[in-house]
């Protein structure tokens, strides 16, 4: 197990690289969902305003 974590001495480069990758993927997922939710909320607000106006 320890050998696996040490990765032949390259651990200090390898694991941060993998951690960064996981972070970028997670950020993208969160960001994409936020973007979609924001657009949906905006659209709902606009529709509500149209209803009020009509």
């Amino acid at each position, binding site marked *: 197990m320890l050998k696996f974590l040490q*990765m*032949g001495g390259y651990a200090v480069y390898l694991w941060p690289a993998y951690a*960064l990758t996981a972070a970028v993927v997670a950020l*993208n997922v969160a960001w994409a969902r936020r973007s979609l939710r924001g657009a949906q909320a905006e659209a*709902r607000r606009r*529709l509500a305003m149209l209803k009020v106006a009509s």
Partner: protein
Amino acid sequence: MAWVWFHRFGSPPHFYRLARRLTPWFAWPAALLCAAGLVGGLVLAPADYQQGDGFRIIYVHAPAAWLSLMVYVVMASSAAVGLIWRMTVAHAVAASCAPIGASFTALALATGMLWGRPMWGTYWEWDPRLTSELLLLFLYLGYMGLRNSVDDIGRADRASAVLAIVGVVNVPIIHYSVIWWNSLHQAPTVMKFGQPTMPASMLVPLLLMLAGFTACFVALLLTRARGEVLRRERNARWVGDALGQT
């Protein structure tokens, strides 16, 4: 027959509903493929005889670099389709690609630097691959900067489409110029392996990761594109029905 399909896909309400249904079909396979690739790459593949365990960074660096380039091509192609056929969905797809592509380009640069440090001794060596990635990042940032500067979303779509098309024509030119420039100075080129060809135990996890990242991109794209379509279809009637459904 194919044209009917094309037009259906291009119609914003159809796209919105279809994208919603398709997303899990890309998201879950992406997770599975990446999990399998990680197990194969980190555990099962043998260490490289020249680079030891350090070469395993390729399992995140290569997919990130692949994505950075592929996403730009998708962005430019859909921007071109949007510009020529005036398709809102195509412009929405192009707009969605940019933040995804830019972040993976940055990731490719970061993982490339982390790979370079043990191999070359420094984090940055102006080698052709990383320099090309850096210029690609600037192209993405320029695209996003232009989009943000234009207020009207339709004009932003069209202007950035022109930029993306010019950029995609330039990408091979930039790539080969940088390779040529680098060859003059015999700087260490990146990521050479001990073996001339990769054995299957090393290659298969790499292919799995590439496929997984690609599927992940499609899932992300579909999610973002739905929002972008909503932003462009301001007062259409279908929006109310679709939102009631979500």
